């Protein structure tokens, strides 16, 4: 059983493993980290992997340790994700993502009349709030529009 699982999520020598991503959000995690075809490091990911607490996604980036700010943006769409920094096949650091209080240039404002959606030389800016009832919500610092459920769909 253990061998089968290792085939799916192979160990890496050096880099970052983002684990416990909300099932189905792995591609959005790559978008948040701006990982595209131009990215040079080896990236592997698994979607809908069975885990102890239900299905999850996992992303592994070899040869690269991502910055804390980069990783914390993942909390916008996957607040329970964990980050493992790997050196020489060993987990040297294991952290939970932390919801940032402010994000810039990560999400598009859903208000089509917002100045941040015009051709002005600015990036979108949101303050980030988390409440028990409503979960994560983003508040546009320009027009005050609030995005809550549609964060993943509005990633830039």
């Amino acid at each position, binding site marked *: 059983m253990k061998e089968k699982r290792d085939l799916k999520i192979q160990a890496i020598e050096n880099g970052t493993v983002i684990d416990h991503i909300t099932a189905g959000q792995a591609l959005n995690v790559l978008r948040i980290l701006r990982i595209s075809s131009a990215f040079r490091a080896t990236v592997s990911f698994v979607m809908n992997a069975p885990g102890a607490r239900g299905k999850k996604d996992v992303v592994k980036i070899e040869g690269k340790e991502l910055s804390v700010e980069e990783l914390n943006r993942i909390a916008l769409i996957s607040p329970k994700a964990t980050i493992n920094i790997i050196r020489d096949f060993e987990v040297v650091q294991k952290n939970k993502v932390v919801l940032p209080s402010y994000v810039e240039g990560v999400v598009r404002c859903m208000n089509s*009349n917002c*100045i941040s959606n015009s051709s002005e*030389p*600015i990036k979108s800016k949101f303050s980030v709030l988390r409440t028990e009832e409503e979960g994560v919500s983003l508040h546009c610092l320009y*027009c*005050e529009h609030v995005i809550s459920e549609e964060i993943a769909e509005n990633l830039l």
Partner: protein
Amino acid sequence: MLFKNRHVISMKDFSREEIDHVLDTAEKLEPVARGEERSRLLDGKIVSLLFFEPSTRTRLSFEAATQRLGGQALNLGSVEASSVMKGENLADTIRVISKYADLIVLRHPLDGSARMAAEFASVPVINGGDGSVHHPTQTFLDLYTIRRESHLEDLRIAMAGDLKYGRTVHSLCHALSLYGAEMTFVSPPELRMPPEIVRDLKKQKIRVKETDSLEEIIGDVEVLYMTRVQRERFPDPEEYEKVKNRLKVTGDLLKAADPELKVLHPLPRVNEIAPEVDATPHACYFEQAFYGVPIRMALLALAMGVIE
């Protein structure tokens, strides 16, 4: 309190103490606004009025405020027609105008444009209305009118008309909540106050009541803030006809009102207030329009640091 070089973008940027300070300053400047005293406070200062959409009333009151304080208003006129801005983005326009003037008043159709302008300006920016969100100088003048003609603390106020799209009532609600008001919202069901605003007010322990009848509440309030219901908000013209006559302040309606009741309206009115109301002691809307001048004088003088 430090107001010098401060932008005036949203009411939410101001604490109750800061709002009180603006209102106090306006009160001191009122004799100048009425032309009874002369002032050279803004001697040598240039205020640029940058209006990307027409709003004659707001523009003229800023012009009057500037000139009453001895300053010069640089009126850029209709912005579409001017060559400075041909194809230029707003950010660059703001950077250029910052070199010409000591303060910029911006009116722009996009939401959040004033907040952005403040990022690029090297002089203070006063939001003269951006998109459908903010119009802080209107809210300041509404508060000033209420304070001068009635009282702000624990006020019993009704707001009536288009409460769904009316930005003036949204930020007025927020500001009045700082003074512990009791609020009644009167509107047709289609134009009710957005539920998130009602929820926010209740969270702050503000007593809120919603109804669609002026008759029902007219005896219980000290201020009635009327707004215009726009025909285009109604898909069915017949519905509009019904509503437009329901939410109308008339001499008859006012018979049941508190003798001290004050009726406010941001103007222009269409038919929300019958002409016979104008001559009653309840009518406050023309004085309210005047109060825009001392309020804008206060904001100009504070932002440029000529008054502390």
